[in-house]
């Protein structure tokens, strides 16, 4: 039994202990008194009482009660006195006063006060050429001396329980209720508590009454007091608030992880701007100028002057319009003004195009990658964002072929954690052959898309590199994989910068 009690005492939270000490010393009967005596905040008292009640050290009872609160005017009057009292005081000092003067002094409430004072015969009124003149009567003098029931009532501590009113107080309330914004009535839970037998056992227990070191301080260290006294045992199982830590954004952590995979495979990071000309984003990749993806409603065009176009423009124009010995081309007129539109890049493949255009034959073979933002003119909803991250890699190599592409894909996706993938035909405007990579979802028992892949069309390499050269390319969007990893269902939650979420989200271990 004693041991049990000791265990309970050991596990007391400092707030609980504080309350128990107060209860033992001062025996407060109401919550208000308990709070006052403990010096704690109301919420802390409530929390600790709840815990104590859970441990059956006290009984906590909630009853619905009608409570009377002071309203705005009531608060004011509690401080400065009833308006009619103020008028009488004023009249006594000035002997007499005219209505306009009183109105100026007290404002519009004066009407109510005069009516009330007249009823009590505390003032006399007289019509004169200067207007109504008011004087104080002997009954008024008496009224001034005596504390009214209303005044007595206002001196009490609010809120007041309606059930505990005396008859006199009830009278005062009726009078005050007729005044605007003096009182308000609310029904609230009122808590009462009673100590139990366990409480009595605890406060009698030696362990509870022993004095302990609460906090090790430099003074205690210096004085050596710690040698003589015990430390208060803590409840080491109690919950504690989390640290407000600094942290990297979880999407950036995921990006870092995927970058490591590319770097481990010997790829070089590409650089390039986010704003690009349609020429680089589309035309250089042999996307026809009337392709639907280029329309205003799909792409963010920017309100700036047309872009300056590079030397390779003529070769691109010719390939689009006429093709060459191996390709029909797109026919029609290739328009410079369409190529010179400035836009936010729609894919990171534009960076691959720029790299290919900058390559020299002696640089080969080369492998490049990029993980960065792309932009789509889409309305944001739980599945769509207008800014998202794309991952992309290319291999430029005279000896590369489609079987190699499949090999790279297998290796890349194995590193991403997908051992069972399949590759099926697909269509992208700038690759031929094109492929879609899918993984087998064991839970759903179905193949799910991961990303696109293919070999860059020879038209592209001929335009940009000057000759046909195999370029293997593959990539995928990042957001869907990250959402899946974090079990985020609304994709917008990746970037709403909710500080609480950012602090508490788990670290990214592997994509």
């Amino acid at each position, binding site marked *: 039994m004693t041991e049990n009690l000791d265990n309970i005492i050991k596990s007391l939270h400092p707030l609980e202990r504080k309350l128990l000490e107060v209860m033992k010393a001062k025996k407060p009967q109401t919550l208000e008194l308990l709070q006052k005596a403990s010096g704690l905040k109301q919420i802390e008292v409530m929390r600790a009482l709840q815990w104590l009640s859970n441990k059956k050290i006290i009984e906590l009872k909630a009853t619905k009660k009608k409570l009377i609160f002071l309203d705005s005017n009531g608060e004011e009057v509690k401080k400065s006195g009833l308006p009619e009292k103020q008028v009488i005081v004023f009249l006594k000092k000035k002997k007499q006063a005219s209505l306009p003067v009183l109105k100026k002094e007290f404002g519009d409430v004066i009407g109510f006060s005069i009516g009330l004072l007249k009823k009590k015969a505390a003032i006399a009124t007289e019509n004169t050429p200067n207007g109504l003149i008011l004087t104080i009567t002997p009954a008024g003098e008496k009224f001034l001396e005596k504390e009214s029931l209303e005044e007595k009532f206002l001196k009490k501590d609010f809120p007041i329980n309606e059930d505990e009113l005396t008859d006199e107080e009830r009278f005062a309330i009726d009078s005050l209720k007729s005044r605007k914004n003096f009182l308000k009535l609310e029904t609230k839970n009122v808590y009462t508590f009673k100590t139990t037998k366990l409480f009595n056992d605890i406060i009698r227990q030696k362990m509870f009454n022993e004095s302990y070191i609460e906090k090790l301080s430099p003074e205690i260290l210096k004085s050596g007091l710690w040698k003589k006294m015990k430390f208060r045992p803590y409840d080491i199982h109690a919950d504690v608030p989390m640290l407000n830590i600094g942290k990297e954004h979880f999407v950036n952590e995921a990006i870092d992880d995927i970058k490591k995979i590319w770097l481990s495979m010997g790829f070089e990071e590409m650089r390039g701007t986010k*704003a690009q000309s349609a020429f680089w984003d589309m035309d250089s990749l042999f996307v026809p100028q009337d392709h639907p993806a280029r329309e205003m409603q799909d792409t963010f065009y920017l*309100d700036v002057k047309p872009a300056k176009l590079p030397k390779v423009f003529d070769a691109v124009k010719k390939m689009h319009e006429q093709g060459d010995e191996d390709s029909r081309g797109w026919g029609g007129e290739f328009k410079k003004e369409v190529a010179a539109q400035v836009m936010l890049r729609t894919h990171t493949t534009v960076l691959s195009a720029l790299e290919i255009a900058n390559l020299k034959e002696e640089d080969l073979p080369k492998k490049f990658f990029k993980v960065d933002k792309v932009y789509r003119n889409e309305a944001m909803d739980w599945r769509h964002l207008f800014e998202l991250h794309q991952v992309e890699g290319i291999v430029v190599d005279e000896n590369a072929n489609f079987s190699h592409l499949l090999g790279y894909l297998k290796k890349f996706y194995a590193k991403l954690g997908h051992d069972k993938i399949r590759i099926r*035909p697909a269509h992208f405007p700038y690759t031929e052959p094109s492929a879609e990579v899918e993984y087998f979802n064991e839970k759903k028992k179905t193949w799910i898309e991961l990303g696109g892949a293919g070999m860059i069309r020879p038209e592209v390499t001929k335009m940009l590199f000057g000759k046909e050269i*195999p370029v293997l390319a593959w990539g995928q969007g990042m957001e869907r994989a990250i959402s899946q990893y974090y079990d985020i269902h609304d994709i917008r939650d990746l970037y709403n910068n909710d*500080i609480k979420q950012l602090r508490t989200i788990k670290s990214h271990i592997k994509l």
Partner: protein
Amino acid sequence: MTNITVDKKYLLNEIGLKLDDDVLRQKISMMGTDPEEIKDNEITVEIFPNRPDMLSGYSIVRAFKQFLGKDIGLIKYTAKEPKKDYKVIVDKSVKQVRPFTACAIIKNLKLNDLKIKEIIQLQEKLHLTFGRDRKKLAIGIYPLEKIKLPIHYKALAPDKIKFLPLESNREMTGTQILRQHPAGIKYADLLKDAKVYPIFIDSKDQILSMPPIINSELTGRVTEKTKEVFIECSGFDFNVLEKCLHIIVTVMADMGGEIYQMQVEDKVTPSLKTETINLDIRYVKHVLGVNFKSADAKEALEKMGHGVHTRINSLEVEIPCYRADILGKVDLVEDLAIGYGYDNFEPTIPDVASTSKELDINVFQRKLRKLLAGFGLLEIKNYEIINSESQTKLINNKEKPIMLLSSVSSEYNSLRTSLAASMLGTLKFNLKNEQEAALFEIGTTFHHDSKQETNIREEEKLGIIISNKNANFTTAKRILTTLMKELNTEFELRELKDGLFIEGRTGEIIIKNKVLGTIGEIAPQVLTNLELKNPCAFIELDLDELLKIIS
């Protein structure tokens, strides 16, 4: 995304194989189409935009049958020569508005409601995809019995055109159709600047249609009684039009119809002409990495509907007249790979030596992120596209942002010129839970700059914002000083006047005589505009420049 629905029983019957749903799904995937849904009686297939020839159930079954090895090789479609009246006389007035047409007549059609639905679906999907929503071409299909041949294709002033359009109860002029008819309103842009509008009109002076807008109610509706139809495609590139016509007439031939040619100007359409490409077997190996035997390569291409004659070291490939996506030999190589089966390739990993390399700026950014997280700052990531007012008026910023043209979400209409607006926005967003925060963000800002190729300069920035009861200039300067010490860099501050900050509590950050950023206490007017409750200290640094200096 274009989905075509095929009757499952019809498809299984045609291919003559019993396949369960999983195998069916796998095979359809491997053909280069996407099985959207397989139900008890229907299969819905997504067709990629490069295959307009597969936009009908008939053509999907045709392709699928061959892909599975049945009736492989080139299917010969033939057309009968034009009869005497089978003529479309093209007036030179159309040259300025819609110069070309390719036409055909189909006879002996035994139509039922399913076939009519199929024809209408094919026409609609071709309009939408291959025809770029009628911008590139428009198709008309008419019951021949209501038309008197020959037909004239000409252009008239809009008010001279008058006929009863489909879905209307009164005759309308060309102008009225564009202004009042639903189809006219929808496609009015396509005839926006035209002085004359094109029409097809028969020898009884009945107007058949006004392409690319609408047909006549009297001659433009195919019904179950229709046995013969006249088909026209009109537009701007004759080759594209004839390709489209080939796609339609071959489907109708598969339905049992007989194709008749028509005389159109100096041409006879549809020619049903196939194209032949010589495919070097070494090129196939070069691209695919597989040493195909001629016979295997031949079979793979035949499964994709091509006709193949083997030559020494090469294949002479005859491409079906309905294929619109074969630009050159590489497209045949893809077809060969699909016919062979993507799942039959052996993935090989080549041994290519290469050195990995990360951009300096990104290495730098990652180091900064680790460092700042160690300072107790939390990293946030905002959009680069933000509301223009939120980054100008609301935070007293005078720099004119780059505006987006036609953003779908009108509130996101500009590119940010600084991280300040987004970061203050994050504080505002979190007010309900957190009134204090210590945040950093690394991101791009965009600025007008005529020296750049795109007329836009992009800068990588670091932003730091601290918001709490005691945040002030000193808070920010302590962080900056510590950070610069970590980077082993000296800086000084120069007084600055900037509406974002309280005057006298802000400065430009100077490193090696260059302005690399700003620091200061956010002006109360800005805090009030954003309804923020606590003072804020803010730093912004240009990382590209900083990296140049410290490296």
